[in-house]
């Protein structure tokens, strides 16, 4: 299977970094306006989502129902703000929708709904189910002889769910080389560090033992992320990308703090975070 992902032009990383910075600011604004939501896990996955939607995925916002499109499943559904912001920046729906996060009647609820939001491939939020859906999509893609690929983003705490490993077993059994599981390895879950709640390490060896091709990368480095996605499909096995990330990345107030798993910033904290992100964003423009 030839590589579907090409290396970017030299200026591309800068462009992606700027996009990621814009998405982070959108996330903070959304959460501060809604007064509830999950900032930690949303901020840690921003680079992964940006790399996917702005370089890797073959999707077209004008044709969200194209059968040949690549699929992305946000299995850690509580990181919906990051997904919404990315979809809006990519042009699936207007940026003005973001203001109504978690409001009654708004399409953008706390967890993504595939019937209401264009570009969302699967309704998720009940953890552990996304990869199973991904296995089905990848298998269907192969039966239809479509070249589409399926990407599923899992949280690391989510990997404690038994269903994830059932899906991992099935994917390896069917040799789904068009399936990619990305683990957002930020090391924290709602109740504390994953290694104290229910230890996951050695996580890479676990995926390997289940018959997957495993790549470990820095989840905030576009060079490494894109190299990893480029290597997908060489072997006749599904690929697991274990992305080391920092929970709450980009906002010093929230970085590596368990408290910020599911707490929205108040007005003052939001402004402070936005100021920090804007300064960082301006630095990337220079």
């Amino acid at each position, binding site marked *: 299977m030839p590589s579907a992902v090409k290396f970017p032009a030299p200026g591309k990383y800068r462009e992606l970094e700027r996009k990621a910075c814009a998405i982070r600011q959108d996330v903070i604004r959304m959460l501060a306006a809604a007064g509830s939501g999950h900032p930690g896990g949303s901020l840690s996955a921003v680079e992964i989502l940006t790399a996917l939607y702005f370089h890797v995925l073959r999707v077209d916002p004008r044709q969200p129902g194209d059968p040949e499109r690549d699929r992305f499943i946000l299995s850690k559904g509580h990181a919906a703000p990051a997904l919404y912001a990315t979809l809006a920046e990519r042009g699936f729906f207007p940026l003005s929708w973001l203001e109504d996060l978690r409001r009654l009647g708004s399409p953008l609820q706390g967890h993504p709904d595939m019937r209401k939001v264009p570009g969302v491939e699967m309704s998720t939020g009940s953890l552990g189910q996304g990869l199973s859906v991904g296995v089905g999509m990848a298998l269907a893609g192969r039966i239809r002889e479509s070249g589409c690929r399926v990407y599923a983003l899992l949280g690391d705490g989510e990997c404690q769910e038994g269903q994830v490993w059932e899906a991992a077993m099935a994917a390896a059994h069917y040799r789904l080389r068009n399936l990619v599981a990305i683990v957002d390895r930020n090391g924290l879950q709602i109740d504390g560090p994953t290694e104290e709640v229910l230890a996951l390490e050695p996580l890479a060896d676990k995926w390997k033992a289940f018959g997957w091709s495993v790549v470990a990368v820095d989840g905030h480095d576009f060079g490494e992320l894109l190299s*990893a996605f480029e290597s997908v499909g060489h072997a006749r096995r599904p690929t697991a990308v274990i992305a080391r990330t920092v929970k709450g990345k980009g906002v010093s107030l929230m970085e590596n703090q368990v408290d910020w798993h599911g707490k929205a910033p108040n007005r003052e904290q939001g402004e402070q975070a936005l100021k920090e992100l804007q300064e960082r964003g301006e630095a990337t423009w220079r």
Partner: protein
Amino acid sequence: MRTEPVLIGVAGDSGAGKSTLIRELSQLLGPDKVAVIGLDDYHSLNRQERKAVGITPLNPRANNLGLFIEHLYRLRQGEKVLKPVYDHDTGDFGDPEWVEPRPFIICEGLHPFCFGVLAEMYDYRVYYDTHPELKVAWKVQRDAAHRGYTVEQVRREIRQRQWDIRGFVEPQWWYADTVVTLIPPADDGSVIGVQLKEPPPGTQHSGSECWVGAQTLKPREAGKIRTAREWYGGREMWVTAITMPLTQEELRELGTAFGITEAVLRRVKGEEAIPFQVLLSLLAARLEQIRKQKESYGRERYAVGG
């Protein structure tokens, strides 16, 4: 100040002894300074798929050379790359691995100079060849010992491969700065000799330094090094043949003539250096010179830019 790594290409048939050469060469250059990339890892199809398509790995079309070029560019820029890994035991791909850029990057395989754009990327190109007699002898040794083949079977296998070798691998010697051939021992001596063929000065990057340098040396007078100009594949090549071991004294003389550093000379142990060791020290010296040129180029450019 970052210096670009020195890219070295080593082409040759499988079983010619490329990996032995590279292992010894990286010992001389310092193992922590060398990264080795095998082109076998850039197969685009696994064994099953090749069988289904009916193609051998000797055919460039069964190799993902586009990805290889991409990776070479990135390594030259000082970025690390995620290289695929091909497992010869299973005939399928393993987990990809990261390759960090190091001062010397050696690319070895069947097609490192497959086409012009690719050949131009290297700083130094070696086409590594082994005399057919030696190749048969070594292959018989290996296959008879481990797999139970007879001499006739081995010869037949080599004959079957020869058309792909002639079509896809051998033509690459044209791009080489040095064509190295291992030659069987002469009747009087017992060591394997080394023959270096270089394009005449001015036709390629490196010119014929060994040939020119060897003209005035003592080992040549003693008949240990022979020089000649020969026609090879429709083009004139200047040939230097080292057929007998050199003494330490002679090696030192060679060292001063070619700029082989003390560190390299010191690693040649024993009283005599066999031709293969001489070849290694010549190559190591050449690569270190290229490295130095690159470093000084970087400094000058930095100084001009202010």
